[in-house]
């Protein structure tokens, strides 16, 4: 079996220590740097199981778990676009064959085990028996086959079709076996499996996807007891399913209230109305809540990198020395301190330290040094013109940065950098555009640069970044093209050996750090709060989102 769930590397422990540290940001950065020096070792050594319950005490049944989301829960079907708030409700209602848990460990749920063939083309899943849907129907391989086939059928226009791009057939030879054949070996397939929740075939086929989205039936720990308990813009109230195959959930009910305003979520937490907020608060409110001592606080680094994608075909930006010089010209620590209140870490390439198994800190680094930047530009032939802006062969050292319209939080980053770049003789103009426009125009090379955060691999601990770094891919915002990177990314998804995979993605990070296809600034830190009375939480997490898989194991004790 690959991706064995039980292993903890020394560096993983170090990163977790950092994340649980209450110390200052500087301490955290120092510790992060120290952790980075420890080489990556991912031996499959035995360690403590990654089950959520690490906290003492006997679980108590009863009560309610009340959490808050910022978005309308428009649908209760797994066909949802993947908005986190909706997803949190979905994982209470549905299960998938496997999940990637809050420690980024692949854990079996509806499946007992899986066996990839030697060539990596065939995956054989053994399913659990005795799993029941909320309508009492038994879950079998037919349901899995139905779900996978439904997603792959173009007629259904499924939003999840991308997950199964490489799947050629799904077979169910007997009720507890599912065999999936891929057209090409792809080890990220298991991550896709972990995101696809299983439909009850008979019911879904009968009512159809649209009706299903308002009256869902799954195998999950909670179910929708009454259609009236679901009002999309207001509340999702779910009831514990007595026959849940992993044991009835401790909380009698799970409630998700929609509170769009960050200030509203803040007051709901402060007033004691809510146990948790799915969506983050304003930075200063997060600090207040943490300091109140009423909440268990999980701090995790985002997988997304805050960056300027740069058009690598732009006459000025296509020069690698220019991009490197811009990195040196950017005081990223100042951005982190002033815009993010120090909550985050500086990026070393496209991958976040949070993807600890694959993160490579041993790459070219860029300290803030305007002199270095200037000499690099001079050496590359970019000399100062009469107006103070450099030029070379008639090309001006100038580009335009697109900022998302109304993005008041990140706009200061653009303005600070405008000043930094002007110091080294580079003119950056700032304009605003709609986010949809930016995302559509960048990969086509129709814009010079932009400012936003994006995940370049790392979701669910999976480092694959074909989508963003491979030549010509739809989310390759920098029009980046490097033959070696393309090869490595294709190789990485075929490697069954973890150490070889790590080496592959370490190399990708080296190249990205070296070539700077985009200006990578930092990975912001996210906060997640659980009221102190909520028990059954792990000490630390790598993904606070994936902790919602474990709500059924949590319980409430009397508040001290």
């Amino acid at each position: 079996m690959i991706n064995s769930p039980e292993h903890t590397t020394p560096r993983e422990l170090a990163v977790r220590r950092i994340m649980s540290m209450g110390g200052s940001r500087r301490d955290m950065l120092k510790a992060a740097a120290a952790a980075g020096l420890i080489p990556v070792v991912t031996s499959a050594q035995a360690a403590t199981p990654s089950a959520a319950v690490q906290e003492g005490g006997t679980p108590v049944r009863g009560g309610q778990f009340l959490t808050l989301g910022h978005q309308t829960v428009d649908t209760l079907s797994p066909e949802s676009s993947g908005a986190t708030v909706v997803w949190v409700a979905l994982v209470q209602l549905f299960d998938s064959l496997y999940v990637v848990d809050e420690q980024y460990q692949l854990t079996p749920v509806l499946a007992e085990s899986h066996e990839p063939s030697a060539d990596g083309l065939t995956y054989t899943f053994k399913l659990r028996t005795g799993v029941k849907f909320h309508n009492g129907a038994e879950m079998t391989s037919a349901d899995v086959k139905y779900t996978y086939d439904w997603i792959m059928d173009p007629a259904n226009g499924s939003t999840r079709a991308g997950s199964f791009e490489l799947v050629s057939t799904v077979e169910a030879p007997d009720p507890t076996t599912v065999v999936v054949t891929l057209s090409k070996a792809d080890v990220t397939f298991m991550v896709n499996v972990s995101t696809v929740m299983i439909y009850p075939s008979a019911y879904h086929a009968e009512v159809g996807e649209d009706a299903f989205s308002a009256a869902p039936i799954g195998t999950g720990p909670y179910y929708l007891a009454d259609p009236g308990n679901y009002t999309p813009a207001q509340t999702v109230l779910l009831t514990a399913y007595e026959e849940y195959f992993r044991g009835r959930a401790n909380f009698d009910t799970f409630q998700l209230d929609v509170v769009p305003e960050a200030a509203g979520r803040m007051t709901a937490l402060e007033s004691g109305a809510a146990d948790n907020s799915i969506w983050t608060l304003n930075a200063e409110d997060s600090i207040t809540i943490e300091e109140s001592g009423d909440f268990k606080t999980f701090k995790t680094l985002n997988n997304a990198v805050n960056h300027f994608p740069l058009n690598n075909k732009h006459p000025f930006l296509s020069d690698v020395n220019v991009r490197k010089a811009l990195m040196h010209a950017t005081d990223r620590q100042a951005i982190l301190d002033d815009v993010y209140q120090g909550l985050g870490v500086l990026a070393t390439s496209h991958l976040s330290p949070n993807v600890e198994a694959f993160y490579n800190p041993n790459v070219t680094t860029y300290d803030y040094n305007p002199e270095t930047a200037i000499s690099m530009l001079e050496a590359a032939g970019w000399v100062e013109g009469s107006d103070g802006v450099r030029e070379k062969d008639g090309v001006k050292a100038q580009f335009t940065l697109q900022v998302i319209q109304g993005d008041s939080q990140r706009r200061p980053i653009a303005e600070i950098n405008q000043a930094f770049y002007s110091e080294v003789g580079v003119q950056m103009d700032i304009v605003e555009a709609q986010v949809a426009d930016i995302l559509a125009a960048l990969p086509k090379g129709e814009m010079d640069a932009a400012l936003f955060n994006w995940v370049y691999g790392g979701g669910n601990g999976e480092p694959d970044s074909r989508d963003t770094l491979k030549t010509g891919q739809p989310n390759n915002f920098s029009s980046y093209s490097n033959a070696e990177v393309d090869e490595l990314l294709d190789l990485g998804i075929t490697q069954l050996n973890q150490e070889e995979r790590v080496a592959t993605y370490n190399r990708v990070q080296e190249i990205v750090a070296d070539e700077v296809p985009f200006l990578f600034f930092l990975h912001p830190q996210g906060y997640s709060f659980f009221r102190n009375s909520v028990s059954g939480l792990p000490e630390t997490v790598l993904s606070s989102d994936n902790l919602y898989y474990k709500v059924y194991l949590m319980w409430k004790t009397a508040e001290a």
Partner: protein
Amino acid sequence: MLSYVVKRLLQGGFVLFLVSLLTFVVMFLMPGDPARRMVGQARVTDEQLEAIRERWNLNDSFAERYWAWISNLVTGDLGTSMMRPGVTISQMIGDAAGMTLRLTVLSFVFSLCLAIPIGMLAAMKRYSLFDYISMLGSTLGIAVPNYWIGLMLIIVFSVNLGWVPPYGSASWQAYILPVLVLSIEEMAALARLTRGATIEVMNQDYVVTARAKGLARNVIMVRHVVRNALLPIITILGYRMAFILSGTIVIETVFAWPGIGRLFFDAIVQKDLQVVQAIVLLLTGIIVVVNIVTDLTYAVIDPRVRIR
């Protein structure tokens, strides 16, 4: 009278048509691909995106889509929404409009009941302490943004005192703060207007004559002043109604109130043409009807106004 109403209704229908066409054009030209939005950050091939577009008829031309929409509308079918396919759009809007209407009507009635007596009293006792205080209050009520008042009230009454829930609409207590906040601005504007209108009427010759005749002060107020002062107020009420509707969008966000404003916002963000269209039509319809009703009420209150 009847022909007037029919004429106004026809005009209203034309306005609705123009507004619907305009919204459709704006939404159609708005950048962003709804199919891409549905997929989120997930990996997807061009063929798969195409399948999604096909499923939701996003590839149809402007004319085809507008025609499909308008012909459905005639049969009373507002269609199915991309963002919430589990329910019909009529039901979606019905639910949300119900929530907004409750808020609007309650605060409208509440503010009317307080603002008109306050305004009249302030006019009658001009330059008194009551007049100064009430007008200072009304200036503040207009000047201070209502989302700020909302947040402050939440902090005091739900975080500190714990008297009311901080958000939602689950209990009657939850109505108190949003209704109050929505009423404050309304009340402030109305009280000011009532005071001004009353003062103006009180200076009219017929009031002076009535007073000279020795008519009781109360009788003068009820028979001559109030009735005449109400005229401009009623004209304004129609506009205020529209204003309150737009005001709820902010308040709905602050108090997490699942009303029409929230639905509207969600639909625009998700580029759900059908829903945006239906809401615009509803809001325009309300304004058109309110305006007609205002004109008719005018005729009832002021016999000099004859509608032909």
